[in-house]
């Protein structure tokens, strides 16, 4: 997930980062900072109603919604969490304690969820009395309508569920079926849809059941970043039609869209019938796409924005920390950098070569040099914000130049091509790695390419080493540990199974980690996975650096001054509880 974001941002970064030094110096002078910046903790009293905010989003990531905002057809749902939070709210939300700890999934529009004893049936119960902003009921039938559309409308962001489609679809009303067929593509496979209707059923006015073929312990954890979480009004769709609905979808969230200029500006006003009394606090919220961190920061300083979601330029974050007009809230990291080593081709089919890389890599020095020590060091596929964090993996090979040199000598030399996505930060990390590895006698060629080319390199299978990020809040959601290390993933360099169609020991561990809904059991498996990856030296892990939320003074809310771990890249902000201090 992070790679997609970064790749999309590369052009912006290339342009703006060149100007950072100049802009930074001048903006520092302009703001006449007295060094009294803020960092966490609101201390601002009770929330107040009223006011509005403009959220500045990177045009290359969350600020792009070219495929619209209909959850079933959008290809950018994972990036558009801010907009979706405001429009739809969500069945579940990721919440945390005020200091960012104890992150957990909590029912939001859902009242509760329950797994069957065998872990194969998930029952979601909705809160009573929620209405979409067109006045119709948000009920179980609406959820089924949305989920079936999501699975059959061609969105590349649709979740891959192992549904049990063997049963019979229930008798559904003609009205429902007509509404569903009208909202599906003309070439949809009818049998597939009926299979999905067998697996996903409304068992009451407010209860929905999802039947699975295999236990999926990460399913509910993945909801907040998935379109499954976003329930839209079937009636509004019928009235507006697909194209208009994609532009102005109707949900039951805290805000209602009033204007949408795709991938440019989205304007919303308060939903007066929101199901939570007294919320949302804000009267209006606007989302504005901007061209990168430097532009976003200057726009904030110019008073045209109130919130920058996910500022990642370290120099700008430090500048913002010294500016009394803004508040900076560092995120809780989940996704560390990792150097994936391709064990399927030389030289990394030899464990000695992989060990040499581990011993030659000093991510701590890179963290100090490039991230001013703000990154959190990790020895596995998640950081402190993620579930199942494992701060120290037993036997992890740490930086030891002498051992690296000895291994390189023993092998008679080592030549490596290290690739990454063409973005400033990743290229800088690669250059630092090249320097470190050369000290150990490793001959290193570094490359940085657009995301599409990096994907092609992965698909071609002939890459040697690739700097990426790994992990998510739940390691099995999104581009988590399975995508980076599962043998069937095209983005993995871990060994292939001995026989075609078989599995490796690591595959079995990865599967076992989601085959239970017991968190303790899952934690045990992820510890084993971390140890396995470390023992086999598949990939040295580095610092996890999470973009900061930068807001003007007086803006508060969960995900801003009350940190919530990032599901994948940026923190999620719960906009129904964002508020601004009145003057």
């Amino acid at each position: 997930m992070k790679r997609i974001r970064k790749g999309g941002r590369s052009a912006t970064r290339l342009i703006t980062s060149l100007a950072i030094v100049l802009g930074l110096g001048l903006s520092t002078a302009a703001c006449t900072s007295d060094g009294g910046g803020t960092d966490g903790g609101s201390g601002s009293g009770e929330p107040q109603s009223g006011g509005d905010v403009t959220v500045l989003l990177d045009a290359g990531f969350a600020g792009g919604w070219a495929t619209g905002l209909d959850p079933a057809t959008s290809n950018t749902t994972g990036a558009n969490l801010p907009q979706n939070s405001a429009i739809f709210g969500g069945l579940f939300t990721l919440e945390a304690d005020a200091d960012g700890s104890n992150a957990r999934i909590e029912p939001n529009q859902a009242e509760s969820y329950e797994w069957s004893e065998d872990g194969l049936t998930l029952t979601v119960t909705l809160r009573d009395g929620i209405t979409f902003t067109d006045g119709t009921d948000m009920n179980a039938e609406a959820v089924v309508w949305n989920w079936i559309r999501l699975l059959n409308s061609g969105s590349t962001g649709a979740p891959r569920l192992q549904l049990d489609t063997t049963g019979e679809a229930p008798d559904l009303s003609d009205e429902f079926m007509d509404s569903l067929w009208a909202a599906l593509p003309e070439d949809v496979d009818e049998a597939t849809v009926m299979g999905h209707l067998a697996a996903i059923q409304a068992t009451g006015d407010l209860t929905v059941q999802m039947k699975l073929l295999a236990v999926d312990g990460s399913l509910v954890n993945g909801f907040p970043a998935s379109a499954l979480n976003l329930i839209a009004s079937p009636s509004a769709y019928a009235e507006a039609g697909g194209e208009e609905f994609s532009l102005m979808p109707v949900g039951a969230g805290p805000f209602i869209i009033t204007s949408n200029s795709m991938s440019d500006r989205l304007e919303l006003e308060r939903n007066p019938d929101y199901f939570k009394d007294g919320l949302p606090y804000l009267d209006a919220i606007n989302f504005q796409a901007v061209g990168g961190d430097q532009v976003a920061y200057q726009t904030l300083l110019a008073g045209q924005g109130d919130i920058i979601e996910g500022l990642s330029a370290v120099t700008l974050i430090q500048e913002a920390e010294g500016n009394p007009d803004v508040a900076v809230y560092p995120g809780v990291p989940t996704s560390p950098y990792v150097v994936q080593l391709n064990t399927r081709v030389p030289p990394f089919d030899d464990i000695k070569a992989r060990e040499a890389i581990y011993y030659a890599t000093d991510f701590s020095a890179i963290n100090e040099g490039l991230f001013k020590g703000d990154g959190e060091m990790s020895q596995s596929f998640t950081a402190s914000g993620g579930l199942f964090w494992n701060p120290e993996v037993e036997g992890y090979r740490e930086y030891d130049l002498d051992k690296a040199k000895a291994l390189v000598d023993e092998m008679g030399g080592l030549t490596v091509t290290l690739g990454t996505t063409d973005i400033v930060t990743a290229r800088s990390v690669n250059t630092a790695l090249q320097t470190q590895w050369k000290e150990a006698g490793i001959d290193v060629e570094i490359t940085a390419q657009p995301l599409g080319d990096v994907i092609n390199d992965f698909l071609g299978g002939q890459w040697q080493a690739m700097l990426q990020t790994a992990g998510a809040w739940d390691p099995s959601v999104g581009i988590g540990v399975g995508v980076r290390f599962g043998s069937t993933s095209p983005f993995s360099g871990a060994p292939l199974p001995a026989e075609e169609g078989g599995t490796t020991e690591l595959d079995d561990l990865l599967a076992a980690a989601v085959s239970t809904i017991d968190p303790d059991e899952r934690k045990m498996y992820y510890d084993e996975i971390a140890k396995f990856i470390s023992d086999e030296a598949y990939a040295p892990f580095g610092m996890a650096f999470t973009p900061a939320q930068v807001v003007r003074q007086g803006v508060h809310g969960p995900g801003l001054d009350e940190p919530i771990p990032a599901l994948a890249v940026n923190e999620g902000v719960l906009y129904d509880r964002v508020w601004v201090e009145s003057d």
Partner: protein
Amino acid sequence: MTDTRTVDESTTSIRTEAPAGFLGRMAGSPLLRLIARRVLIAIPLLFAISVLVFALLEAMPGDVAQQQAGMDATPEEVEAVRKRLGLDRPPVERYLSWLGGFVTGDLGRSSVSGQPVATLLGERMAVTMELVLLAFAVSLLIAVPVALLAARKPGGIFDRIVMVMSMTLLAVPNYVLALLLVLVFAVMLRTLPAIGYVPIDEGLWANLRSVILPVLALGVPIACFYTRFLRGDLVEQLNSADYIDTARAKGVAPWKILWSHAFRNSSFGLLTLVGLNIGGLVGGTIIIEQIFAMPGMGMMMLQGAMSRDVAVVQICVFIFAAVAVFANLFVDVMYAVLDPRIRYGSR
């Protein structure tokens, strides 16, 4: 002059053979013949550009379908995207299909949003055209008077200041200039918006306020370039041209010599520069629109390139190239209008 007279004689004979009436007179016009000739040259040129653009996009590394499907898409999903985008068809077939659509006015659909490219273009082109036209206007409004003033006393204080300032501003890339302008006028003075575009139907002043900074970021470097060029040409003319000496000997006022004689001759060179600059200026909007969050063609092309939206990138590049081609055609025509010797092919 001899050549011109000869051509005049030949055209007279053509005129007598042309059909009578307005159309006939138009057809016999040397200027129209020149325009027709240039347009006929432009057509194959644009065709060649369209082939080149298509070939370049085709040769770009990376799998468009994989990129659009996303990193965690299955091979089946990637194939479905490939089919939906028509990428399973041979390149020549796809090009001919695109060309056929283009000729008949069907620009296709964005592979990302599914919207007709023509609709997207319509919304965006007005923004970019406003930026470009205003930037040209600003650049000329700055360059001409400043160059005239500087050329009046070469080596004087004003001339030196102009030279130093123009060289300094020329050395600053326009995206840095854009950020500096934002810093001064939006962050420090809070007089102009840092980002955003207000359509003209929401008020002329609001519209102008929203474009002042991007127009300056685009226009000022060009103004510096024109100033230096025009000032140099004027000084050369004033120092060495016989007709200037003659005018001085006749007692013509210095300002009249500068404006009516020297500038008139120098304007040909300036016109050439304007033609050459148009392509670059339109291209410059890609960065400027990004920085100022202006929903124009430059932003559309950048977003299209990042998402590998071939239909969008193709038409944007084609339009940018076409603007450059037609700008040069316009310059040629203007030469002919201003100088009859060119109209009759004698220069």
